[in-house]
């Protein structure tokens, strides 16, 4: 069965710091990869996705992620975080027909003003 690991459970950064959240998955075939964000009191929103093509994917709010197939990774990055980026971030993988998503455990990001 496929699985997704997010190694950082809690991250605390100051505004303007750079962000990188790790995501690794276990599946050897073709995958679709997603990052979702859950702001406090809000529902899961799609941040970015990778289906195929350029492994560097740009999403909303200045976020980007890089798919490295050889490392089974899809790390999320942002060069300069803002207080409004405080949220929980989930990496998810779809590796099967029927688009069932497998989620990582989430990373709770707190950005100090």
């Amino acid at each position, binding site marked *: 069965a496929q699985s997704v690991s997010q190694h950082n459970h809690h991250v605390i950064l100051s505004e303007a710091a750079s962000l990188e959240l790790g995501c690794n998955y276990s599946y050897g075939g073709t995958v679709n990869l997603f990052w979702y964000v859950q702001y406090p009191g809000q529902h899961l929103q799609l941040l970015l996705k990778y289906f195929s093509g350029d492994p560097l994917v740009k999403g909303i709010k200045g976020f980007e992620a890089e798919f490295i197939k050889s490392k089974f990774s899809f790390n999320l990055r942002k060069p300069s975080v803002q207080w409004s980026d405080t949220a929980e971030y989930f990496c998810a993988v779809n590796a*099967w027909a029927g688009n069932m998503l497998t989620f990582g455990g989430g990373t709770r990001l707190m950005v100090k003003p």
Partner: protein
Amino acid sequence: DAGVTQSPTHLIKTRGQQVTLRCSPISGHKSVSWYQQVLGQGPQFIFQYYEKEERGRGNFPDRFSARQFPNYSSELNVNALLLGDSALYLCASSTTLRGLGETQYFGPGTRLLVL
């Protein structure tokens, strides 16, 4: 356009009771999936429905059941509630069941507390 809507937003039940949660997908979306998100964890897949048929099922007991209606809305039923069923139940919709290449859009969830 309206996003995925779910009702109710919050629910409190006692052990042994039964609960029904409702979901309306984004207009034009024909596939609905249900996920359970326990506090501090990522969402876990429960069911997927497409064109009123169950197309996928996660590792959940038979106490969990669901159905999809002709208008593509869906209900999730949980019988004989346990304390461990306390969670945020998320509904997600997508246009089809194409598998790879589809994006799921999530609703706000129903927060269920079992006492």
